[in-house]
């Protein structure tokens, strides 16, 4: 007689359908590969959306190629987290690191989950001025689709480093934290 049953296996499964990247996402990625960060400026309220969405959600108006503006590859840390990686299976990080939200000059939206590898953890603070460290041109595959909205710049920018400029005043960041 076989041993009594002591364990039961089962899967919990979540299945997502992820839409293909929109033409605008693809265009944004192509421009990133060329070293350009582009956004759309709302013709009504003037807010700059980066990546471009093709519309302004506040004014509910469409934005198109004629509303395109280039955004700087430098900006300001608005908020950040220090991550202490647990060593679970598949974890590749071993040391503490910083993930920051960055408001690029000329944009009203932020880049999230930016790795601040080029700055000592103790020096990271809200208001810190940083600039992008670009990947070599051949390695810049911009994120597309939902990833572009969440992560911003894909593999085009590998890290961020401090510029040494004076901090951005807090009231300038007030409406741009995340």
């Amino acid at each position, binding site marked *: 007689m076989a041993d009594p*049953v002591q*364990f039961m296996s089962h899967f919990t499964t979540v*299945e*997502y359908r992820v839409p293909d990247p929109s033409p605008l996402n693809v265009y944004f990625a192509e421009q990133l590969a060329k070293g350009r960060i582009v956004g759309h400026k709302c013709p009504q309220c003037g807010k700059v959306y980066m990546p471009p969405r093709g519309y302004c959600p506040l004014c509910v108006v469409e934005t198109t190629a004629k509303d395109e503006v280039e955004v700087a590859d430098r900006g300001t840390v608005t908020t950040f987290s220090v991550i202490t990686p647990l060593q679970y299976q598949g974890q590749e990080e071993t040391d503490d690191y910083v993930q920051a939200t960055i408001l690029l000059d000329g944009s009203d939206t932020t880049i999230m989950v930016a790795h601040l590898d080029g700055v000592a953890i103790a020096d990271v603070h809200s208001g810190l001025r940083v600039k992008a460290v670009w990947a070599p041109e051949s390695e810049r595959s911009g994120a597309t689709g939902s990833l572009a909205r969440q992560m911003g710049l894909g593999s085009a920018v590998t890290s961020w480093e401090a510029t040494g400029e004076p901090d951005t005043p807090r009231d300038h960041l007030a409406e741009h934290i995340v």
Partner: protein
Amino acid sequence: MAATWKLEFPYRRSVGPVIGAFLTALRDRRVVGVRAPDGRVLVPPFEYDPETGEALTEIVDVASDGVVERAAWVTEPLRTHPLDRPFAWALVKLDGADTSLLHAFDCGSPERAQSGARVRIRWAPETEGHIKDIACFEPAEG
């Protein structure tokens, strides 16, 4: 067009002595329950009496056929359902049991998914000690 992302969490659960006995019996194509202090036979079995919280240990054999207490018709089965055609979810009280077991009832049409219908277990071709060892219930004559 859309890409599919699948996120899966594999679990391995310890089933304990009572559910373990139930699953071990299923592997042998038998069904067991547990006797409560008031004499009722609970199928599927509980480790503790739902009324008093008392630990339950007396494993009791019950039949592999019984009667539908309630049924709900599924018009379009989901990918994760036990059957790939329309079926009924049924609460089945097996002969010898005082409580009912929820499982799929492969009866072809909602008209046959009636309270009082006689059913029997259709066993899976291979059993392994899992609730899926019961493939489903099917109509039984008489």
